[in-house]
């Protein structure tokens, strides 16, 4: 009995080497108390042999797993940390950020393989502008660059399976609705609409101008009271599902080797070089060396070294730029001019009306700013309005103000479409525009003060529809040093320093 106890404790002691032989260790599970009452019977001896066999086998397995060549380590492996060093770090995992990542990988190819990291702080995208948008795409802009960006993005979306198809995965189905945009103009705005029509036709958009009589003939459910001119997109316009585009870009980029990190960018480590300039005096030129990323639900901040940083943070691009010191200098210096991108809250209301217009409902945009489009086949519509500058809602949360619908949107809707006088608001949500307060157009390029930070922000509600073309443009800037397919030098970020506004008149 004593010998078997010693044997049991010796075997048990292999797991915890410091246990002396004589202590009474807790009996291991497969040892029954009976084993200690040794007898000369055959049954207990074979039991003992079997237990011994099992124990020896466990010992062998444990020894084998601790030897080199197995995947056991005493250190815990963490998969959530970003790599220590990457070539390009993209701040922001929205549709613009992933589009840039995809195009960088596509243009660089396997030989000149770049290590790209996309940093996104919210995997659910609960506040991201991409997934909260209405998803429309149009060419009816007043600026030639916007029209070209939109046409190029449409070309991408038309052949999306050739671009973003991953082998053995489902094909991408954007659920594209091919109804055009219908802009209505009053007497005051008719000449602007005509000028825009010239620009659009010249740039290659297929748009048709209609008089109120033609409008009434085409869409009998519109009340043409107060409408002087209407502009209708004939092809290449419509709306689609933003989630699908984002997931497709992400899936393809990940399949090409782009890495993703969940975390929030908290700051940058940068080196400063003082340079003498004849007109401006001493300027501090910065070069980012490390990006400090805070891990989710943790106080841990991880530095990631990178050659280039791309700021595609959407509504928070201004804040990210401030982390490098843009906007924090004195009022008179260049470093005092901050990136003029700030979040602006916009509401979207889902309304239901069984008597409303049917399958041919275009994306209607009234001259008052109210827009409406069909959603699904059940008589549901999506509507919204950009508020006046003075009445911008509070941006600390994404709560919806239903009074805004009652006071501002419903009267205009009921006036324009009498069938929608009786409607019911079934749902609503709010999202941020990454609003460029300077001139409501995108900001692309390198900031003169930060040598290695590229910007792709400030699209003011058009980021989704311009994202594929913007991704290609930024990839060309990074890899080729200049624009190759579309010349977007008019949208360069340096215009905010020269105070040259490039106004877009058709903002919805």
């Amino acid at each position, binding site marked *: 009995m004593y010998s078997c106890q010693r044997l049991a404790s010796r075997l048990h002691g292999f797991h915890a080497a410091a246990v002396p032989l004589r202590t009474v260790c807790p009996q291991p599970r497969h040892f029954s108390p009976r084993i200690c009452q040794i007898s000369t019977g055959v049954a207990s001896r074979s039991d003992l042999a079997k237990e011994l066999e099992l124990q020896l086998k466990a010992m062998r397995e444990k020894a084998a797993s601790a030897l080199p060549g197995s995947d056991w380590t005493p250190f815990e492996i963490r998969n959530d940390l970003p790599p220590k060093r990457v070539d390009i770090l993209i701040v922001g995992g929205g549709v613009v950020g992933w589009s840039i990542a995809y195009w960088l990988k596509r243009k660089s190819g396997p030989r000149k393989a770049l290590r790209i990291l996309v940093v996104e702080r919210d995997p659910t995208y609960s506040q991201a502008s991409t997934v909260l948008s209405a998803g429309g795409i149009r060419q009816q802009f007043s600026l030639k660059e916007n029209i070209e960006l939109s046409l190029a993005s449409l070309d991408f979306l*038309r052949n999306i399976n*050739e671009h973003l*198809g991953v*082998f*053995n*995965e*489902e*094909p991408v189905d954007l*659920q*594209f*609705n*091919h*109804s055009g945009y219908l802009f209505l103009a009053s007497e005051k705005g008719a000449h602007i609409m005509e000028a825009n029509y010239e620009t659009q036709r010249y740039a290659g958009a*297929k748009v048709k101008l209609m008089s109120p009589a033609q409008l009434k003939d*085409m869409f*009998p*459910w519109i009340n043409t009271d107060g409408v002087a001119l209407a502009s209708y997109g*004939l*092809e*290449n316009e*419509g709306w689609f599902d933003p989630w699908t585009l984002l997931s497709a870009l992400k899936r393809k980029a990940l399949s090409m080797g782009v890495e993703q990190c969940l975390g929030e960018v908290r700051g940058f480590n940068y080196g400063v070089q003082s340079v003498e300039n004849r007109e401006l005096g001493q300027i501090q030129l910065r070069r980012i060396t490390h990006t400090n990323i805070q891990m989710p639900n943790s106080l841990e901040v991880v530095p990631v070294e990178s050659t280039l940083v791309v700021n595609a943070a959407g509504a928070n691009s201004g804040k990210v730029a401030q982390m490098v010191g843009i906007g924090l200098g004195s009022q008179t210096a260049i470093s005092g001019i901050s990136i003029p991108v700030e979040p602006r809250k916009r509401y979207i209301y889902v309304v239901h009306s*069984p*008597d409303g*217009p*049917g*399958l*041919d*409902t275009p994306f209607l945009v009234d001259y008052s700013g109210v827009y409406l489009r069909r959603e699904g*086949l059940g*008589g549901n519509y999506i509507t919204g309005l950009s508020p006046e500058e003075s009445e911008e809602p509070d941006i600390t949360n994404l709560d919806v103000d239903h009074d805004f619908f009652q006071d501002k949107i419903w009267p205009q809707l009921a006036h324009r479409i009498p*069938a929608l006088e009786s409607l019911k608001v079934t749902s609503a949500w709010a999202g941020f525009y990454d609003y460029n307060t300077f001139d409501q157009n995108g900001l692309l390029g390198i900031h003169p003060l930060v040598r290695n930070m590229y910007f792709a922000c400030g699209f003011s509600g058009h980021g989704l529809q311009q994202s594929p073309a913007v991704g290609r443009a930024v990839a060309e800037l990074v890899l080729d040093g200049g624009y190759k397919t579309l010349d977007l030098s008019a949208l360069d970020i340096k215009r905010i320093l020269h105070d040259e506004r490039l106004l877009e008149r058709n903002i919805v």
Partner: protein
Amino acid sequence: MEKWHAGLMTCRRQMLWSVTIRRNMSAAAPASSSSPTATSRFLLWLDQTFHDVEPLLNWNATLRKRLVRKKNLFYGYAQRNYGENIAAAYYILNLKGAFRFAGQTEWFRSGPRGRFSYDFMNYPATKIEEIDLSGTPINHNGLDNLVSQVHLRKLTLRGCPEVDGWFLSRLHVFSETLEELDISHCPKVTTGALSALTHLRMLRRLDISELGRVQNPGLVQILTEEMLPHCLVIGADYSHGLVSDDTTQQIESTPGHKTQPVATES
């Protein structure tokens, strides 16, 4: 040899994990609604077992796409040297379609092996009135060859695998004259694509039966009839997709979608 064998074995182990998330081979078989054939199942098994099969199957998919692109090139040479009508006619015959000139009753078709007579070149100034492109791989790029035929009255696109919303949205160039359109059995046409047909105001007959990607054929039938009030729409039955009798009565008693009277032609 052993290393290759070991590599195969690792591959097999890794593939076993991903067995649960494998989908239909969409690259090889675009019609995912039908059950996979024995060949595609075998290819799927090959792909799951060996890493090297994936690029081969990728090439297969790329070659198919290249073939479609080749079929839809712009016939610039023919247009410059022989005029738009002959270029359009030549394009249609190359795709193995058929057409009829305006003012004639004879149809020009290509033979069983793709051969056709060049008699159509005798009529360089006549526009084409009816086109039958059923079963051809025409897509939105191929329409570049046909947009000059503004007197087109009838277009048949039955069972065309590449006709989708982008194609239909380009048909607005025929809005003045197109009277009959048949897009039945086209697998890529969705409901969003049908909303592009609102430009075709002269349309009198539209066939939208058996569209695989349209989820509610009965409802879409009603909405399309409402969108094109002077057109006879052939497609699903109104009762398609309606639930059983007692709930049908409840649906009938609520106000319907129709805001205009629907005129049907016999």
